[in-house]
């Protein structure tokens, strides 16, 4: 089997959680070569010389620093999942290390895999049966949709703004150079290198700062992002406390006490949950409370899992219906709380409401349509909590929430893109220093522009031409 896709890709291939082992998989023509650059075994062992389907003990090192103690499994083309040379690195050091190993592979020449790309290659290399073609297509399209969503989710706010500002500056200066090249008798670009150097230095500093924030601890903490929602006083905070085993959220009998979103990280039998308690959702005039509610909606959109707490001792109302609509196409567990009191809301009511909500909202193509689970609990007495944990675990191991590595990979991908933008801008500076003509600057400027666009999900299209026309006056 010939290797059709020459570049080498890598990804974390196990669920990312703080528990134990993680596997980083790399496939492609240079898989062995790249692995050899970071693997240190006994007696200067070279992975490239080893037989297929063998396992090797050793260490992953980068620039003399040991990252982890690992087992490396080798599979030579065509006898691997993808049909290409494949290396699997079994790491021991948890989330941070797994991610670090992936980053090092990328540093040495692998490319972060696109969603579904391993499977795509497996198919294109003839490793998967023809009957699976359609499933492969579905997988690619749904995983891409998820990746796009999570990529956009992570970018909300300041980072996106910062990247867009950098891109804006890059395109402006490129457009200036290009206008001058297209219309040299109207616009003079001689000696522009000096001006540009200042700009580029400034942009390099900005990107460097962005890169440094990629590595902070927040990422390591990331697990299944879970949101607790419900009407005011349904018992959301009590549930959180029950799960945490400590009183963190303010619990009172006054509806609307949790006005902000609390965030907690818990480890549920080895599964990392990133739990957010939200303000109760109801139509309110209170401005501060309103902000809390809006935030909660935002979190629902981004969450991997939703725990919807219903006060089963009160009848369902308009506010509940609004929540049903928000969550009916998300991965959710509906908790009928206050089982210690006399309950009037039953499972059947919930199922009916869900059906109603589903009919009401437009479910877009490719949008996830998950089975929603229901459980009875009493957060106050901590009864039913064990069952809830079981359900989460079942969803986790049963594949229902296979916590998607995408968040991590997206992160790594973002980082790789930032690095490549950084390198491109360094090349611009090199060209300026070498006194290269101005037209050479725009080649690397546009490369940087494109790399940054990969993060924000924007392509180049006609950006440059549009910028030229809108900002600069051409002759004729």
């Amino acid at each position, binding site marked *: 089997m010939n290797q059709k896709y020459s570049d080498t890709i890598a990804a974390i291939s196990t669920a990312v959680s703080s528990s134990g082992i993680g596997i980083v998989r790399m496939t492609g023509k240079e898989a062995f070569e790249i692995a050899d650059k970071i693997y240190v075994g006994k007696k200067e062992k070279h992975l490239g010389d080893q037989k297929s389907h063998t396992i090797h003990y050793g260490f992953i090192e980068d620039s003399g620093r040991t990252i982890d103690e690992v087992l490396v499994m080798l599979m030579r083309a065509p006898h691997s999942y993808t049909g290409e040379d494949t290396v699997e690195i079994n790491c021991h050091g948890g989330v941070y290390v797994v991610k670090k190993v992936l980053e090092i592979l990328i540093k040495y020449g692998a490319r972060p895999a*696109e*969603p*579904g*790309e391993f499977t*795509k290659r497996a*198919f*294109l290399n*003839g490793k998967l049966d*023809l009957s699976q*073609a*359609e499933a*492969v*297509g*579905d997988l*690619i*399209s*749904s995983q*891409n*949709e998820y990746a796009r969503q999570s990529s956009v989710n992570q970018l909300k706010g300041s980072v996106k703004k910062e990247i867009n500002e950098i891109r804006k500056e890059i395109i402006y200066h490129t457009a200036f150079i*290009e206008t001058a*090249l*297209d*219309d*040299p*008798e*109207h616009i003079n670009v*001689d000696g522009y290198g000096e001006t540009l150097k200042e700009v580029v230095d400034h942009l390099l500093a900005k990107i460097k700062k962005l890169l440094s924030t990629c590595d902070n601890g927040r990422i390591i903490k990331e697990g299944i992002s879970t949101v607790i929602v419900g009407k005011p006083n349904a018992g959301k905070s009590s549930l959180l406390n029950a799960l945490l085993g400590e009183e963190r959220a303010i619990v009172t009998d006054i509806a609307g006490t949790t006005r902000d979103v609390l965030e907690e990280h818990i480890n549920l039998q080895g599964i990392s949950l990133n739990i957010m308690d939200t303000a109760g959702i109801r139509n309110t005039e209170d401005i501060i409370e309103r902000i809390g509610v809006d935030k909660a909606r935002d979190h629902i959109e981004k969450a991997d899992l939703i725990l919807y707490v219903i006060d089963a001792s009160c009848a369902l109302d308009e506010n509940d219906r609004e929540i049903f609509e928000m969550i009916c196409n998300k991965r959710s567990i509906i908790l009928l709380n206050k089982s210690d009191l006399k309950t009037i809301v039953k499972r059947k009511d919930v199922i009916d409401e869900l059906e109603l909500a589903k009919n009401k909202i437009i479910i877009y*193509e*490719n949008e996830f349509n998950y089975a929603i689970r229901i459980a009875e609990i009493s957060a106050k007495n901590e009864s039913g909590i064990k069952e809830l944990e079981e359900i989460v675990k079942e969803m986790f191991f049963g594949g229902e929430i296979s916590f998607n590595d995408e968040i991590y990979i997206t992160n790594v991908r973002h980082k790789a893109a930032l690095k490549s933008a950084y390198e491109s801008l360094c090349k611009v500076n090199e060209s300026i220093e*070498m*006194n*290269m*003509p*101005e*037209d*050479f600057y*725009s*080649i690397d400027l546009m490369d940087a522009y494109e790399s940054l666009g990969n993060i924000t999900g924007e392509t180049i*299209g*006609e950006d*440059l*031409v549009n910028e*030229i*026309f809108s900002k600069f*006056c*051409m*002759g*004729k």
Partner: protein
Amino acid sequence: MKYSVNSVWENKDKYDVVVIGAGHAGCEAALACARLGHRTIVFTVSVDSIALMPCNPNIGGSSKGHLVREIDALGGEMGKIIDRTFIQSKMLNKSKGPAVHSLRAQADKALYSRTMRQVLENEKNLEVKQTEVVKILVDKNRITGVQTLSGAVYRCQAIILCTGTYLKARCIYGDVSTYTGPNGLQAANYLTDSLKELGIKMYRFKTGTPARIDKNTVDFSKMEEQLGDEKVIPFSFATNPDDVQIDQVSCWLTYTNKETHDIIRRNLDRSPLFSGMIEGTGPRYCPSIEDKVVKFADKERHQVFIEPEGLETNEMYIGGMSSSLPEDVQYEMYRTVPGLENVRIVRNAYAIEYDCIDARQLKPSLEFKNIEGLFSSGQFNGSSGYEEAAAQGLIAGINASRKINDLSPVILDRSEAYIGVLIDDLVTKESHEPYRMMTSRAEYRLLLRQDNADQRLSEKGYEIGLISKERYEKLKFKEKLIENEIKRLEHVTVGTTGNVQALLEKCGSTPLLSGSTIIDLIKRPELSYELLEEIDTGRPEFPTELKDEVIEQINIAIKYDGYIKRQKKQVEHFKKLENKKIPENINYDEVKSLRIEAVQKLKEYCPISIGQASRISGVSPADISVLLVYLEEKTRCNN
């Protein structure tokens, strides 16, 4: 206007190809077909306006100069004609990298037109006929011929539409509007209806031109003289450089000022653009002076170039001040420009509106997707510029001829030529204004230089049959010289000897600390192949007529080696997707998991390759992956 005629008769002369229009696209198209052995007839509303230049009096310029060289390398005519009729020539961007060097020549307009006309008239297999074509005759989605205004029917196997700005043309300035083509020529008013009946989607575009003035009323002492290059480089690789070292005429530079801008602002309400009289979409890259004043309000002055229109006329062109303001405002504003205080206008500036098509209805071969045998090129396809038109004309001509001969079409891709970029953009991207070639549109411009157009394309031109064996062999010889010399240089080293250091010092270069290869020295910006001659003994003698070209190629190959290698790598990746062809009969509804938007777009465009599909807006990378999987599935099913 509805067309009707009483008597229809059939012309029994057998034609292979009918070309409609004899502008820059029509001339190239007709010549290509005739030279490839097809009996060709070209129709024009006026034989006196063959290869007319109704706007600017020059050929080439940034990226357009590239197009002319590529046309020449493929065996087209434009480069040869301008080499015979130019009156000033300049290599633009000479201080920049080789990728953006671009030739531009001022033409003697009348001479250019006459010379091209003569080439057409003397071409075997080619006939010129003055009449208006009013109808395209089609049977079962395949063309069978055309009908002219007089009712004559000409049967043929292929038609090439090159109607430029003539379809339902309307010229406007102030509140004056006439239904004429450029320069007051007769418009073609009937063909649009026939095209619409065939289901062809039409647009209405607009462009404009400045006034022409009387040279005797210009005070050149108030302007800066703009000279041509001392050593002129010809456009055509077939022209002997000695033949183009002529006495050149000058252009002149002056500027608008506050007074000019005030007059324009005061009269904006009298512009047909503001009154809504003009409905067409104008190009952003060639704004009228009123557009510039409005859009770039903070600019205190704009450049104005006064350019001769030819040697045998006193008319001059006012580059930079196209307008559609009323006649009295034109006089007033032009006369505020230093040197033009007493200027007399020979022809007024005007805007022109015309019918053209949405070129996404075309295949990359420039044949209509839905009508077999119908090709189109030039401004009719929504482009602008003489060079863009000629380039498409040549390709349409080549492909019409190949269609008749049952050969696969010639399609240049974006990594091969600016022509490839031009046509791919036209047939793939939606555009709401006339399309102009720009160097920033070419992703791989370091490889698509004007200096290597022959190396890129002449082999193709030879295979097509438009480049002679002699010219092809000369190219191969030149390539061999370059290759051998670079190979030799790889093994030449110099030490820190006295004469080496002295030479480096003389050239303002740092002395060597240890030995170096000649190649590393050539890479220094201040040094070149020529400068190092005395320390590099053993150089071969190049034939005089090729010497400059060969040395230029050696310098570029060595100096920009790193950048060139990088772009070549990008091209490799690009080619992979480009070479993955999509079968014409693909049923996108059958491809599960494609997003609905992607299915719609793919059905509308019918891309020929995965590469082209990936450039359609609304088709995502995930859609491309899904498509790849689907194609693989199909191939395996078929095996």
